[in-house]
C-alpha cells in the first residue's frame, strides 16, 4: 500500500448537510443540484439510503451489471465508474468549484488529498488503509460490474481488498465527488474490505464524525451544519426523478 500525500491547507468554510435514510431520487437529485448551482457554497454531504439502492456508473451498460436483477431499487449516477450497492455504508459527496484548492490541478492529485483524509478517518476506527498502488487486489473480480470488484492505483484498500469507492463529475467549472465507505458487506459486494460487520446507526455516525473531523484537520476546512436552500430543494426534486427513469437507467 502507498501513503497518500498531505492535503492542501488553509481555513475555508464549507457547509455540511447530513441526511440519514433518504430516498434514492432525493440523494442523487440533491447532489446534482449542488453541482448545477453556482450559488451553492462548497458542501459536504454525509448520507445513507432507504431503501438500499444499487447505483450504476454513468457510462455503464445496464446489461453488464447482473446485480440489477437482485436489487430492490436501481438508479444511474451522474458520476462514472462501477455499480455500488448502497447498503451498510456511509455515502458522502463533496461539491465545490474547480478553483477550490482541494480540486485544482490533476484529478489524481485531488483524489490523493481526499483519500489522505479518509485514511486518517479510518485510522480513528482502527482500520489501517492506504492507496492500492500497483498491486492487484483479492477483491478484484470480473463480470459483476461492481465498483468494489474493480480497482485502480488511487483506490483505498485494507486487508488486500477495496473498501472505499469514489468517482467525480466535472461540469461548468464545478465538481461533484462521490464516495462510499463500506461499513459491512452487501449481498452484491462479497469479499471486499469493510470497517465492521454491518452499518448500525451508531457506526454510521462514528464513521461520519471521523470523516468530517479528518476532512477538517487534514484539508484545513471548517464545517458548518446546514440544510439545502429552498432553491436547492426545488432543483433536487426536479432533477431527482430522472435517476429512476427507465429511459435514463437503460440509456446504455
Amino acid at each position, binding site marked *: 500500500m502507498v501513503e497518500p500525500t498531505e492535503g492542501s491547507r488553509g481555513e475555508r468554510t464549507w457547509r455540511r448537510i447530513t441526511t440519514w435514510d433518504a430516498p434514492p431520487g432525493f440523494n442523487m437529485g440533491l447532489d446534482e443540484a449542488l453541482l448545477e448551482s453556482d450559488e451553492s457554497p462548497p458542501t459536504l454531504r454525509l448520507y445513507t439510503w432507504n431503501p438500499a439502492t444499487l447505483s450504476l456508473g454513468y457510462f455503464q451498460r445496464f446489461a453488464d451489471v447482473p446485480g440489477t436483477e437482485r436489487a430492490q431499487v436501481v438508479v444511474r449516477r451522474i458520476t462514472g465508474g462501477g455499480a455500488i450497492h448502497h447498503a451498510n455504508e456511509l455515502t458522502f459527496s463533496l461539491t465545490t468549484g474547480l478553483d477550490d484548492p482541494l480540486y485544482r490541478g490533476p*484529478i489524481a492529485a485531488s*483524489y490523493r488529498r481526499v483519500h489522505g483524509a479518509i485514511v486518517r478517518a479510518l485510522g480513528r476506527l482502527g482500520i489501517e488503509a492506504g492507496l492500492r498502488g500497483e498491486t492487484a487486489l483479492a477483491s478484484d473480480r470480473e463480470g459483476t460490474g461492481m465498483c468494489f470488484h474493480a480497482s485502480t492505483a488511487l483506490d483505498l484498500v485494507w486487508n488486500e481488498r477495496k473498501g472505499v469507492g469514489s468517482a467525480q463529475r*466535472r461540469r461548468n467549472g464545478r465538481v461533484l465527488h462521490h464516495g462510499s465507505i463500506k461499513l459491512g458487506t452487501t449481498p452484491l459486494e462479497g469479499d471486499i474490505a469493510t470497517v465492521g460487520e454491518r452499518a448500525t446507526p451508531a457506526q454510521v455516525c462514528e464513521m461520519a464524525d471521523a470523516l468530517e473531523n479528518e476532512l477538517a484537520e487534514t484539508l484545513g476546512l471548517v464545517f458548518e451544519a446546514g440544510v439545502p436552500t429552498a432553491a436547492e430543494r426545488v432543483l433536487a426534486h426536479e432533477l431527482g426523478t430522472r435517476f429512476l427513469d427507465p429511459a435514463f437507467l437503460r440509456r446504455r
Partner: protein
Amino acid sequence: MRPDDRKYLETHEWAKVTGDIALIGLTDFAIHELCSGNEGDLVYCDLPETGRTLEVGETFGEIESVKAVADLSSPVEGEVIEVNEAIEDHLEILSSDPWEQGWMVKIKLTKKSMDHLIDAETYESMLAKQS
C-alpha cells in the same frame, strides 16, 4: 504556447474557425487533468449526433477517465455537421494530438462572432493563475 490560430473557452474547449465552419476540441491541459499523462486512463467519449444545434456553453458531449466524467461545453453556436468517429475507438488521439487529429465535432456556425472566447495568450495566463 498553445496554438493562436483558434480561441478558447475557460472550460478548456477550443474552436478553430475557417469561414463559417468551426472545428471544436479539448485542450491538452484538460486532457492531462483527466488522465495525468496516462492516456490509458481515458475510457469513453460520448459525442453528439450530426444535425444537433448547439448554443454557446451547451453540453455537446461527455468524456470519462478512470476517475471522472467531464462535460464538454460548446464554445460556439451552430449545427453539428460532422463528428470525429475515430475518437470513440482511439481515445489516445486526444492525448497524442489534441490540436489537429483530436478535433471532436465540426460545426456550421449560425453566429460568427467569437468575441466571447479568449485568445491563446489569455488562456495561458488563466492556466498560469490556476497552477
